[in-house]
């Protein structure tokens, strides 16, 4: 079961990487991302259909963090502005457009859903931020890997089922709109290609996870 576990670990790392890349840039941010990218790039991602988008995104490394333009662009696109973020990376923006109570009830429901999966978000971004949702996927992949490592096929299949449910009921339900909105905002190439990769990865995983589960049950 080692190689099944390795694949799960690679996917865990990939989602962890995406979580980092989609969070607020800090001083060490781009250097850490660049190292993580180089590590993941050697893990056989060329087997997957999003590899071209992965490579296009990777062409931006090394990023000169002293430039500062990317920090400003992150804030313009995803954080805030005079009239709010151009392309909010949060699920409730797309799935409960009435602000206020409606959004709060969406977040409460999502938090309960996390609890039912045994996941709790602490500090950092909002529970429905793209970065948090990618981190949740990373946790679910880690569970799958641990199950494979313990030769627990039932546990691994359960983790795959959780991943599929989370991808289809959350990430794939709003990331395409988020991506369209980001592209329409004429972003800097780094964030354009990051958004394209995010979209391609989410679409891929939504269809890939069930086929993986099917192959594992043969």
């Amino acid at each position: 079961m080692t190689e099944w576990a390795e694949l799960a670990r690679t996917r865990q790392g990939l989602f962890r990487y995406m979580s980092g890349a989609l969070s607020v840039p800090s001083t060490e941010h781009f250097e850490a991302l660049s190292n993580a990218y180089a590590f993941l790039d050697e893990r056989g991602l060329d087997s997957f259909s999003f590899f071209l988008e992965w490579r296009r995104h990777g062409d931006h490394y090394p990023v000169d963090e002293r430039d500062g333009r990317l920090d400003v662009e992150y804030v313009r696109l995803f954080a805030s502005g005079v009239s709010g973020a151009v392309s909010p990376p949060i699920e409730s923006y797309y799935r409960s457009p009435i602000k206020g109570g409606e959004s709060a009830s969406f977040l409460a429901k999502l938090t309960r859903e996390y609890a039912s999966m045994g996941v709790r978000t602490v500090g950092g971004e909002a529970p429905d931020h793209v970065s948090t949702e990618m981190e949740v996927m990373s946790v679910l992949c880690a569970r799958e890997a641990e199950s494979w490592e313990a030769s627990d096929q039932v546990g691994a299949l359960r983790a795959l089922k959780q991943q599929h449910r989370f991808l289809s009921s959350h990430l794939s339900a709003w990331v395409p709109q988020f991506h369209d909105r980001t592209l329409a905002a004429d972003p800097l190439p780094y964030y354009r290609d990051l958004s394209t990769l995010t979209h391609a990865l989410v679409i891929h995983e939504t269809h890939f996870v069930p086929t993986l589960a099917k192959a594992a049950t043969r």
Partner: protein
Amino acid sequence: MTQVVRCGDEPRLGGSGDGVSNVTELCRDPARLHQVVPDGGPVVLHLHPGQTARAEVQRALRRAGVDPLGAQTLETAPDIADDYVDVALAALAARAEAFEGALPEQAKPVHPREMTRRGLLRPPAPEYLAAPAVDHGRCRSVDGCRACVDACPTAAYRRIQGRIVYDMDACQPCGVCVTTCPVGAITNPACTPVMLNAHIRTLVSAAVDPPGVRFVCAERRDRTPVADRFDVEVACNGMLTGAMVIAALAIGVGEVEIPGCTDQGCPRGLDAKSSGAMDLAAAALRAAGYEIISSERSVQPVSPLPAAPPSPFDREGATETMVALFADSETRGLDHPLAPLGNVTIEASACTLCTQCAQTCPTGALAFRHTEGEVVLSFDPLLCTNCGQCVSACPEADQGAITLVGGVFPNLLSGGRQELNRGPVLSCERCGRPIAPGRMMDRVRELLGPEFEGTMAHLERRCLDCRGL
């Protein structure tokens, strides 16, 4: 320019020209592709038959920066003649260049059906099939069209609240939706009308004599080239239409063959569709007065056909091809249920002029307009694609109000838009705006019965806006 990469040591002496590279043992180790295709671009691979797993080839292409859904592969045994290979490679190069890219949602991951013993310990590498995608900007489902829903053999499409929802997991990309959609809103990135056009036109121009073409299913992997036929890959032979067969012949192909997929038939159960396409092509050619040699699986015209339009494999091109075929014909035309054109007739005594048919018609062949106190229903046979959505939408279809006959009718095609029915419209006594066709209200009265007479009288006097005043 397209890179043609051949497995082997011997440089080709044939006429493929520049852009041909040889890579030793490419079949055994596709990753070597990276040596000659460092920067992406269109690629054609020439490999030995059946030696390389598709997942491995796709992986190597990605590493070389190439989208595998657009790359083309030719697999031939060493004894196949050089001139055949040159023509086939040139045509595949043209097809690769015509690839317009694929969306992330057009790559369907599948795992190989046969699981190896090693696969029990190791996750098998996925391979990707080109899957269709719906352009919701062009799709007319909001008006009621559900042609893809009705046509899909695996129920991969549903229409929910006026929007088509596609289920990739249920889809076994056969392309039937692509050729069924009346407005061309569904595309398969590996088999677009532009790619087929480039492929077949290059075959015709590169071959010395008019070449034979064999349409082959992308899922059929055990195919061996036949000396007098060039393979043209489609998602499934079930997606082929009679108009596509005639289009290939009109481009200059000498003979078209649609072989069966396996001895057991099409795994998707679409044999009837592919044989129907061949039947239509043969019937249309005969009806237009052309002498042909045909069998259940092939057709060969004895005399040349009218020249094909510039893009004969899309919906408009299919119409143009059929119209040109019958342009000089003195026959009454062709009746065929699979024809890409049709004729709508209305039984005036049963039609209530509710205009549901015109509102649903995705191509605008059926249309309605209001004139002085009347509604007029009209039909343009050149726009009809024989999709049948009008009949499905008609509430009086079981009363025989509307009839659609698939076929090509030259006398109608030259007549332009024609009036099918007209009738009075009731007007609001307060504001004068139209309320509804009189015959429709009569039909509603008939269905509701005498106890609703008071309600009907009220509905017939005032429009929706004035009823509360």
